[in-house]
């Protein structure tokens, strides 16, 4: 019955999800002060109060802007470096044999462990956070570009060679357009990790950003502030991931869907 009306099914799923969230918030609101210590868990109404006061004073916007800015810089730097090295590895087999095992080894390294090192090198600030994010984002785009190009059907490359395409023409007319689908899925996977990295760096040591907001309010025993910062991060992450997913869905530039 329901299966015949896809929109009805979608509506019901959404309604149940909203009801679940609402129930959770209501229980939280009721339990805080009765069964649980409100200095630890605060309560939804207080968190909302805190967030709206911050919004009026521009504190939340500024912190979110600082976090987003580093995420953006890190994504750009990591994507640029990852795509260049990934395409190079897919093009030259000898380079791939040399570089790929090293990249895979470094991929396993928890990048957060680099925070003290980067603070030592660059001091606390944008350079340190951006560099850290680049080292995280790099891997996603490296693998996306490399595997995207390597999975390109051989007849397409042969065809380009036979019609006399130079390397740069093949890059522009074949490799990059064929990789767009892969790169977009790389973007979608890298984005949440970029957020994790920036906020981790902020929590360890930084002057601004949502991570700093959460950390400082925790230090001041203001649970409502901590939750307001966390909620903002959740919404920000969901919004950017949604945007990336929408881009991927829109893309007809994949070889797979022909």
């Amino acid at each position, binding site marked *: 019955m329901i299966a015949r009306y896809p929109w009805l099914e979608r509506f019901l799923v959404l309604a149940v999800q909203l009801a679940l969230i609402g129930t959770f918030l209501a229980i939280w609101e009721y339990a805080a002060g009765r069964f649980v210590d409100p200095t630890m868990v605060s309560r939804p109404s207080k968190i909302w109060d805190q967030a709206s006061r911050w919004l009026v004073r521009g504190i939340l916007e500024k912190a979110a802007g600082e976090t987003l800015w580093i995420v953006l810089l890190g994504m750009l730097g990591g994507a640029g470096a990852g795509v260049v090295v990934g395409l190079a590895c897919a093009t030259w087999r000898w380079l791939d044999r040399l570089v790929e095992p090293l990249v895979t080894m470094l991929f396993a390294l928890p990048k957060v462990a680099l925070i003290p090192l980067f603070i030592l090198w660059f001091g606390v600030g944008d350079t340190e956070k951006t560099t850290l994010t680049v080292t995280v984002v790099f891997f996603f785009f490296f693998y996306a570009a490399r595997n995207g190009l390597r999975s390109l*059907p051989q*007849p397409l490359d042969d*065809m380009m060679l036979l019609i006399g395409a130079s390397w740069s023409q093949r890059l522009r007319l074949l490799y990059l*357009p064929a990789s767009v689908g892969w790169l977009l899925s790389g973007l979608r996977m890298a984005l949440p990790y970029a957020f994790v990295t920036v906020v981790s760096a902020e929590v360890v040591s930084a002057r601004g950003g949502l991570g700093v907001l959460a950390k400082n309010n925790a230090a001041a025993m203001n649970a409502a502030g901590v939750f307001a910062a966390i909620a903002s991060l959740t919404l920000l992450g969901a919004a950017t991931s949604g945007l990336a997913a929408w881009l991927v869905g829109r893309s007809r530039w994949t070889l797979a869907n022909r």
Partner: protein
Amino acid sequence: MSRIATLEKLVPQPDAPPPILRIESAGKSFPGSGRQATEALRDVSLSVAPGEFVSLIGPSGCGKTTLLNITAGLIRPDVGQVLFDGAPITGPNRKVGYLTQDDALLPWRSVLANVALPLEIKGVARAERLERARDILQRVGLAGFEKHQPSQLSGGMRKRVSLARTLVYNPAFLLLDEPFGALDAQTRVVMQRELRQVVSAFGLTVMLVTHDLNEAIALSDRILLFSRRPARLIEAVSVPQAGRSDVTDRTRADDALYRRLWDRLAGEIDAGTAP
């Protein structure tokens, strides 16, 4: 001794023009799994005269495609010499058009942009290359489909787009690797007709790899039969009815030729599958 005899049989008559393609004692092995290399070609010599339509037949996977790839300059033989238009092939051979079973269309480009691609590579101005692409699309019966995406076309139409793209830069020599293998039987006959028309209109020389003996007989001037891997040339026959008016025309001589080719081929296939 026997190789010299084969060579003499294959070299064109004295009054014929010099061959456009000449392969001499070519051999090729590919690194296989483990230590063993796969030998694809052994001591193959052949030549193709300008304007000739030659078909290569042999058991599946015997190395015929390797010969086309060598002619296209995509791979080099380990031994032997390959002369195209009198000069050795050193890199991708831009004087040939290559049509394979895979139509190799770029899915993000329209039909027109796909056909114009070789001219774009050559640096032909936009207006001229689109004009030429439109012209050639009309000649393969695809006028009105310029703005379609490849995914919107049937297999036969995509094959035509692929053919149009191959013809748009005026190659003199066409390499066809089972170009119609993936098409249904009726579409295949339509495409064979079209191919013959195009070949005579453009004065093309053709080397066709096919598994379909009837296709080879209906289209070619000459048929070269190869052994199982490693491919050696075991027989070269001229088709008595070469230049028939239609691909569906068939004579008794064709039936006899079919039987003779099939007997030789079956011998090779049996020998290949015997324990």
